């Protein structure tokens, strides 16, 4: 009975999506806002990557909401999972330990590179933050007897989140709207350009990285009923 109703529902949903896809002007979007952004983003914001300009400049408030959602999900996940206890005591092999030792500085460099170049090349805070989280989690896999210091991660997360909001509030003191990009725009395509956009992405990258590393460390640990 449930399968029959599900098939009917899926058939109806498929029909709806197909009709919408048929009406969609594929390959020729109206681009009501996109045209204006293409023409003015380079002069107004100085960011070569227009997606960064939209994410941090034109829709900066959405990014703040996304950071809040990620914070709530990671905090709630950590709360539900409970305190992290000792992990299963399997010592990792030689390959994993050596590989983790070699990869940790490389992942740090790649993550910071992607974060800092977010406004010039494809990349940004979220992608680099995920790589930083993996960089901090990999030594935990290789050496299960060590634990991660959650206080440092919480401090970094709180400070970077506060830095994001403070940079946005500084714009208020100059009689502009919240989260308006500040400072000098610089030349297009340089790493020191785009005003406060690299700083915002640095705050986002550190926040996302420390949050996800803490969540991964909690998931990897075991609780008392390890069945």
């Amino acid at each position: 009975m449930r399968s029959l109703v599900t098939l009917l529902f899926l058939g109806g949903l498929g029909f709806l999506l197909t009709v919408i896809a048929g009406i969609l002007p594929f390959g020729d979007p109206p681009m009501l806002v996109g045209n204006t952004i293409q023409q003015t983003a380079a002069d107004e914001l100085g960011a070569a990557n227009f997606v960064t300009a939209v994410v941090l400049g034109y829709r900066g408030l959405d990014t703040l909401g996304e950071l809040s959602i990620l914070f709530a999900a990671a905090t709630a996940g950590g709360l539900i999972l409970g305190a992290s206890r000792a992990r299963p005591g399997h010592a990792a092999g030689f390959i994993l330990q050596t590989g983790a030792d070699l990869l940790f500085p490389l992942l740090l460099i790649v993550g910071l590179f992607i974060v800092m170049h977010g406004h010039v090349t494809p990349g940004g805070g979220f992608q680099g933050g995920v790589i930083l989280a993996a960089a901090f989690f990999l030594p935990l896999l290789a050496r299960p007897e060590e634990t991660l210091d959650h206080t440092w991660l919480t401090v970094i997360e709180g400070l970077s989140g506060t830095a994001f909001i403070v940079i946005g509030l500084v714009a208020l003191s100059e009689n502009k709207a919240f989260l308006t990009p500040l400072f000098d725009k610089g030349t297009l395509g340089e790493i020191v350009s785009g005003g406060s956009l690299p700083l915002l992405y640095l705050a986002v990258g550190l926040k996302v990285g420390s949050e996800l590393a803490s969540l991964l460390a909690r998931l990897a640990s075991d609780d008392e009923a390890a069945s």
Partner: protein
Amino acid sequence: MNESIGVVFLVGAIGLSLLGIAGIVLSNHLFRMVLALAIAEAGANLLLILAGYRWDAVPPIVDAAYAGQPMVDPVPQAMVLTAIVIGVGVQALALSLVIRIRHRYGTLDMRQARHRMQQDIDRAAGVSPPRSAEGPVGERPLPAPAAIADSGGRHD
């Protein structure tokens, strides 16, 4: 680059979304529900990016080789960037809930877990579990065997 490449991608996006939703509704294992949620989110993000595609366009980045060609719409890409990160946050929260359900009720089968949860709620509220009229009630006696032998003897 002809028209049919659009059809191919749209079929892929709609198929992924439908497979994801079918997995969520039809699966009995809680972990497989979370996996199907991940697939449905990937399908929905693909559908959003398809709405911003333009024929013979370049990515929305100004580099040294840019010479004023038409660009792909950057607004859906910014929305999808947000949606992907939110999706992984939701998956992490759902997995924490699955781990706690397994820890508390000892099973990951959806119907078993729902049944035990209902028993917990009934016990906490002080009501007895509902009994259906067709299921066997504990204290009702079975019919006497003499009546069965009587009706059985009528067949020739």
